């Protein structure tokens, strides 16, 4: 039955096309402005914004001066390297820890399970300002300040990650687990061979979120790291605003470059968002 040309379906298509157009404009345009501004000479950045024209989104006199300034004169490359290192480590650590903890909370019925989960959840709820000094004191006791470890180690034990993966694991039916157990698999084997391969979109999502959290971290890196050579991109961007003035050119160039890894990661993880055939053994 071909339903492609009924009035209802045409209306649907037009509606969808409009929705896409609006979404793209509203969400894409500001980002385009950021990138374009990064390629504009300083004097053009804000002169092109108020009287909205094509030159707001396309540099009239494209130039690399801002990029040269941040990379050559301000050692931005070092900050990029630091942020990549720290964010990468945080992703790996968080996914590992959260997978293991969430698996047990989702699958193993042990006494006190709900209590543990409740406690984990509570830890998510405290505003950062109240714990920053105790956390800093703890980190100092472990001699982790001014090290790369200090950036991410406290955060890989993430209540958010555990909570999220618990939901993801609970979505997965237990039939496959049970089949594997009857075949004699240990819990660890069940985790690595049965559960994980089937929750890749969930893991990918957690990886992406964790990368974002780590990438955007600002206040904690300031507290824990006093050595500027190890500092992160967010701090670099912040210091483009001083007590006297703002270095907009540098700010936009650095911000534009800062978006590249997160976008690249997003693109790379797209493969896990394919809605494939879910093999579950269900009978109709």
């Amino acid at each position, binding site marked *: 039955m071909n339903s492609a040309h009924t009035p209802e379906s045409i209306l649907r298509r037009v509606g969808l096309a409009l929705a896409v157009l609006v979404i793209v404009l509203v969400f894409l345009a500001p980002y385009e402005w950021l990138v374009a501004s990064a390629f504009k000479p300083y004097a053009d950045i804000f002169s092109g914004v108020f009287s909205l024209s094509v030159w707001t989104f396309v540099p009239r006199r494209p130039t690399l001066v801002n990029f040269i300034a941040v990379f050559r004169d301000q050692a931005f490359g070092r900050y990029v390297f630091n942020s990549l290192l720290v964010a990468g480590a945080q992703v790996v650590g968080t996914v590992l820890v959260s997978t293991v903890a969430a698996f047990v909370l989702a699958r193993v019925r042990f*006494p006190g399970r709900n209590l543990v989960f409740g406690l984990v959840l509570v830890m998510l709820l405290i505003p950062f300002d109240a714990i920053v000094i105790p956390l800093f004191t703890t980190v100092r006791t472990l001699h982790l300040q001014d090290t790369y470890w200090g950036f991410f180690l406290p955060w890989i034990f993430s209540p958010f990650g555990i909570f999220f993966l618990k939901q993801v694991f609970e*979505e997965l039916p237990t039939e496959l*687990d049970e089949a594997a157990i009857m075949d004699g698999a240990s819990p660890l084997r069940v985790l690595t061979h049965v559960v994980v391969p089937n929750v890749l979109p969930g893991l990918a999502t957690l990886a992406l979120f964790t990368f974002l959290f780590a990438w955007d971290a600002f206040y904690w890196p300031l507290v824990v790291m006093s050595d500027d050579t190890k500092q992160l991109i967010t701090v670099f961007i912040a210091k483009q605003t001083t007590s006297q003035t703002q270095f907009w050119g540098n700010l936009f160039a650095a*911000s534009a470059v800062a978006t590249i890894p997160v976008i690249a990661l997003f693109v790379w993880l797209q493969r896990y968002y394919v809605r494939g055939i879910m093999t579950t053994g269900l009978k109709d």
Partner: protein
Amino acid sequence: MPVGPARRKGAWPSPSSRRALLTAGAFLAVPLAGLLIFRVGTIAQAAANSLYQYDLLSGQRVFTGAGNYLRAVHDAGFLQSLSVTFQYAAMKIGVQIPLALAIALLMQKSWRWASVVRTAVYLPVVTPFVVVATLWALMYNPTIGIIDALLRKVHVAPLNFLIDPRLALPSLTAVTIWKDLGFTALIFLAGLQGIPQGYYEAAQVDGAGHWRQFWSVTLPLLKRFTLFSLVIATINAFQVYTPVYVMTQGGPLARTEVATYYMYERAFLFYQMGYASALAIIVLLIILGLSAVYFRLLRPE
């Protein structure tokens, strides 16, 4: 044949609870240790701080017991900040969750423009907030901003979005919704991926159109992710800080002064860390209560 969840979710029936406990212990050892060191210890310290009057700079600590909590209950500024936070959370969640779900449906791979939508919606999430704040402040400017320029074209009086006390909070909320939408949509997308195609096909065979499929297949199966999104969105809304700090600093007339910003002012500007810690504990209990309500209402069977 039944359409809908025909599978049992949850835990295995373990041979013995002792064996289950051992397994749990082995797996949870490292995560729990980390959580204890970095989270439990620090929260306990914050709770301890809340029982004192604590000046960070001079290091003076004076025990006041429940004094800070009693003060908080009568503190008009704090109560106002709670009200602001609730308003913000209600607006943000009420708009962001349904919108994110709608966009997630558009983002599914099976549709032609899905990847375009996906990328576009994700871009604000990755844009540093200082850039977002600058851009939106410009757009909101009554004289030179684009929004008021459009309003003038249709002969509507220009609005002062960030300065008008009635508009400041909604305007700020719009910015944060814009920025966080992609995040929530991705969560829903992960959930949508978990719904087997077979259910939709079965529903179609039963004669269900797109809307009915949505109501009877998609929504029920997304319950778990909806719960998760609600809890996380509520927690994030109650802990919102950076947007206020960068864009409005709590003004005008304290209309955007959310609880965490009020806390920050007490802790670091007014040198009352003990009091701020008590406020943090109170906010924590409020979110805890709300989360408990969510879990009760949306408990997945």
